[in-house]
């Protein structure tokens, strides 16, 4: 049942990214190119996507204040709250990669459906980056069996 609910959420999410144009790297780059304001080339429309998505999820979260989900015994919310160096460094690395090609993880995976070679290359490289990070974390942290699992349970 949880898997079905998750399938539906992924599906709705995918449609949202598709209809909003977030799956188009050129559109994403056009949005990130704020210095094109000067010649009228800036495309602000993805800010609307972000705002609309936040309006629904933010208001919903604030109004419904879920104490427990329907299909599980408890919420699995991120437990980390520290604004630390890994957060900054990771965000910078992600931002640089995103700015280079215009793909972030969601649209990249969704675009696999088009069987486009550059997208496949990107997703494989992304998986390599993720696995490399997790192996490096597992090695530098105490090698407990739960290390990888807990690394996967944070913000998302």
């Amino acid at each position: 049942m949880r898997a079905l609910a998750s399938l539906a959420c992924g599906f709705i999410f995918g449609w949202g990214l598709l209809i909003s144009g977030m799956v188009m790297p050129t559109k994403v780059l056009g949005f990130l190119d704020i210095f094109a304001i000067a010649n009228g080339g800036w495309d602000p429309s993805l800010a609307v996507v972000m705002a609309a998505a936040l309006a629904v999820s933010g208001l919903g979260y604030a109004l419904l204040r879920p104490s427990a989900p329907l299909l599980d015994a408890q919420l699995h919310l991120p437990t980390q709250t520290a604004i630390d160096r890994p957060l900054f460094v990771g965000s910078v690395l992600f931002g640089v990669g995103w700015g280079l090609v215009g793909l972030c993880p969601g649209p990249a995976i969704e675009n696999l459906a088009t069987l486009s070679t550059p997208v496949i290359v990107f997703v494989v490289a992304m998986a390599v980056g993720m696995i490399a990070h997790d192996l490096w974390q597992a090695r530098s942290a105490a090698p407990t069996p739960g290390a990888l699992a807990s690394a996967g349970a944070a913000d998302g």
Partner: protein
Amino acid sequence: MTEMGHVRPDQLQLLRALPSWKGRVAAAHTVAREVRADDEYRLDAARCARVGLSALLLLLLNGRIAGVTGIFAGVLDPAGTDRAWRATFIAGLIAAPLSAMLIGYAVPVPQMPANLITIAFAGVLVGFGTRLSNGCTSGHGICGIARLSPRSIVATGVFMIAAIAVVAVTRHVVGG
């Protein structure tokens, strides 16, 4: 191309010089359709809200954060727990454009103005970076900000600034 694609003459010169120019010419017959799709495209905030709706539903139903990074990494990790719901989320994500193709919606083929080496490099940065900061546009940008998490607000600010800076350099300094 100058007329239809709104490409500036100096950019056109640059495009001609690139090895991908042949491919562009070969694909020229699709340009008209793409421009048409772009022109007909109307942004509808209610539709965009689907992303937020999905994130909210996943939390309300399964109590999980709809962060693509964490979900995808959880599927990749052979020792990971709860791989089933993560895998179905990814399946749903990929099924969306497939279903769109089935009903005749023109799914855009992604165009990336970079060569494969740059794309692979960017992919590794995105993969490593999102794991290090524990989230991407969905996990921090949507779910985290929706929960008013200070960590996510900072992360989103940082990756937006980094991305904007990179686009500024590649488009206006190097490519300008």
